[in-house]
């Protein structure tokens, strides 16, 4: 028969140590999966269904609200956003109705909010970085950022339009008229 002391040591110390070691070893076994998940960074949730329409067009004027225009991206500062014509969708950037076609030496004006699915990553952009505008049913056009201008209004943007340019306009609040008026930081890029 085991002594009283030995019984207590086994039950109160040895078994708990074995339990804790087995449990820790189990944690150790699942560690690679656990650690990998911990490194996962937030990405915008992907939509199962596209809530925009792709139509073939030769002129921006043929497009209607929420028609797909194309895709803006840059490998220089890890940026990408879908662009819809005059988008009403919160998760896409919007091509302004005053835009003219790049294949007609026009000026594309893209508006977006400071959110990850729109133009947020532009704050990593520097002068000289390249941006590609991949236009649905047409070609890809590459631009280089030449200027970054803060504190612009809609009227200022109209006057910034020149041929073969892309204006990427990030809106921010005009607090004197909160919710209905905006200022813009405009990234002026010229076609390469």
């Amino acid at each position, binding site marked *: 028969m085991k002594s*009283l*002391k030995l*019984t*207590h040591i086994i*039950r*109160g*110390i040895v*078994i*708990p*140590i074995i*339990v*804790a*070691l087995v*449990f*820790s070893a189990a*944690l*150790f076994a699942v*560690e690679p999966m*656990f*650690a990998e*998940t*911990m*490194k*996962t*960074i*937030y990405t*915008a949730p992907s939509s199962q269904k596209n809530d925009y329409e792709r139509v073939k067009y030769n002129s921006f004027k043929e497009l209607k609200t929420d028609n797909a225009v194309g895709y803006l991206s840059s490998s220089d500062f890890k940026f990408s956003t879908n662009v819809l014509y005059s988008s009403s969708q919160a998760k896409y950037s919007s091509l302004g109705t005053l835009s003219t076609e790049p294949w007609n030496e026009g000026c594309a004006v893209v508006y977006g909010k*400071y959110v*990850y699915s729109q133009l947020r990553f532009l*704050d990593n952009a520097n002068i000289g970085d390249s941006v590609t505008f991949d236009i649905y049913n047409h070609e890809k056009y590459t631009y280089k950022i030449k200027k970054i201008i*803060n*504190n612009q209004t809609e009227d200022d943007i109209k006057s910034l339009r020149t041929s073969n340019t892309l204006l990427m306009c990030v809106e*921010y*609040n*005009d*607090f*004197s008229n*909160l919710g209905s008026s905006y*200022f813009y*930081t405009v990234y002026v890029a010229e076609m390469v």
Partner: protein
Amino acid sequence: MGTDTASARFFCNLLAIISALLIAFSCFGLVGSGLMKSSSYIASKFIEYDEEMLRAVNAELDKECSNMPAPAGAFTSALDKEDIDNALTRAAENLVLCYDIDFSDSRDLYDSFYNGIEEYCSKNSVGISSAELNQCASLGVKVTNEVLSTGISRKTQIFQLLIGNSVAMGFVYCAAGAVVCLVLINLINKRRHKKYSYYSLAFNGAGLIYIFGALLVKFKNYVDGFTFCRSALYDAALKDAVNSIINAYIIVGIAFVVFGLIMLVYNFKYYERRKKEMNETDAINNQMKKEFLEHYNKKHR
């Protein structure tokens, strides 16, 4: 079921091991969830980085706010630590609810910029209209938001574990399960003192799971690999919070082990005393028996 049978002992040991795991799970959730759900706790961790955050905001203001009606110095002097602390407190409140952190509509920041720039301009005799002040303050909020705002990683498991209400209920069920196991051990042992040795197994087991688990996490530097959001400073503050929680688990683990050992020693002393008393009774009985036999033999010789 008898308390001294092998099957009863096996069943009690099994219940004690199960309750050790349940105690470990439930306290893991209750301690972690309590701290992570407390916005004031997260805010205190964020506020430890307020000076760095203010420096980062001012560096960005200095870079972006040139060519404005107010000089760059007006922007960089507009915010003080209190403004940043208020913003960080709001950030913590959003974070514990798993909301993205965004200050683009912050009227408080706008007012701080407006008043700060106005004060700077009047002190330095810089002429500025109210429309220009509005432009400058709006840009100040925009630039500050670029530094302070961030998306939150909802995929990060620690948040799902510690903040989600459905999972928090799981921790409550674990606690209830642990109590049921301890009650069953008590009943199987017919409320006798022996139950404390099984309780000791449960608490020592739970405590050692915490200690071994936390040390494993520390030695493997898991926390360094965590990414909660895109802001490096928020990430650093949250890693501090997680490290503090891990330290709290070690303290809880030590407390459980001490509690378990006290019960073990208490139980051991009880049975040692009982054994001693039984030995003494046996000795008295033997002595009496011996004396009786001697007396009997003398009488009948």
